[in-house]
């Protein structure tokens, strides 16, 4: 029975994964709550970018979002740019969540799943850390206190890179 289940897992999934070394997808997305304003990933060259997929229904996001807010505040001046991609079906749910976990980094909405497909999101939350050249260098699937600490070390190493 288990062998059959394993076969099905391999047959059904196993798509390509956006892993370290790939460039940030050259897409743009509407800002959360202000669809006329578009945010383009191509405009981020020169900054260290962390793209984080989150949602109001994602329990670990209650811990990851304040951490990202703290990282943005501490390293924003040195060139860190956090972009939160919201996966809620209803914007009202996202706003309700943000009332309890307020952040002021860039927030965009991904209603049509274009970004989720391009980044091949395999877990919630998911984070993609790109260097100043726009190349994804670290991928975070899920969030724990340990992964949060590792993220901070990775951000510092990318901010310090001169080339």
């Amino acid at each position, binding site marked *: 029975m288990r062998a059959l289940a394993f076969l099905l897992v391999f047959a059904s999934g196993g798509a390509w994964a956006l892993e370290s070394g790939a460039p940030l997808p050259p897409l743009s997305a509407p800002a959360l709550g202000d669809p006329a304003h578009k945010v383009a990933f191509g405009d981020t060259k020169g900054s260290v970018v962390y793209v984080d*997929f989150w949602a109001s229904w*994602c329990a*670990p996001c209650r811990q990851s979002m304040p951490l990202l807010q703290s990282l943005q505040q501490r390293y924003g001046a040195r060139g860190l740019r956090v972009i939160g991609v919201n*996966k809620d079906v209803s914007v009202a749910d996202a706003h309700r969540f943000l009332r309890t976990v307020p952040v002021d980094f860039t927030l965009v909405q991904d209603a049509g799943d274009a970004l*989720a497909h391009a980044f091949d999101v395999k877990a919630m939350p998911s984070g993609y850390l790109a260097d100043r050249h726009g190349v994804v260098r670290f991928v975070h699937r899920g*969030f724990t206190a340990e992964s949060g600490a590792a993220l901070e070390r990775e951000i510092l190493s990318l901010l310090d890179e001169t080339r």
Partner: protein
Amino acid sequence: MKRTWIAFLLLGGCVHVAPYDRGYLARPDMALDAGLGTARALEKIHPSKEAASGGASVGGGGCGCN
């Protein structure tokens, strides 16, 4: 009975809800059990008057985060 089980496992190959599409599945009313306190209380009411018992919750569903 065995055919039902095979059907369930085969369903695993056909159905795939992406991790970022689990908003509705994460709702509290989509949980397979009532809240822990209410569930413990309900366990007291019916089994004490009936001969049948058992059938336990086995996890799964929900937001599937992390």
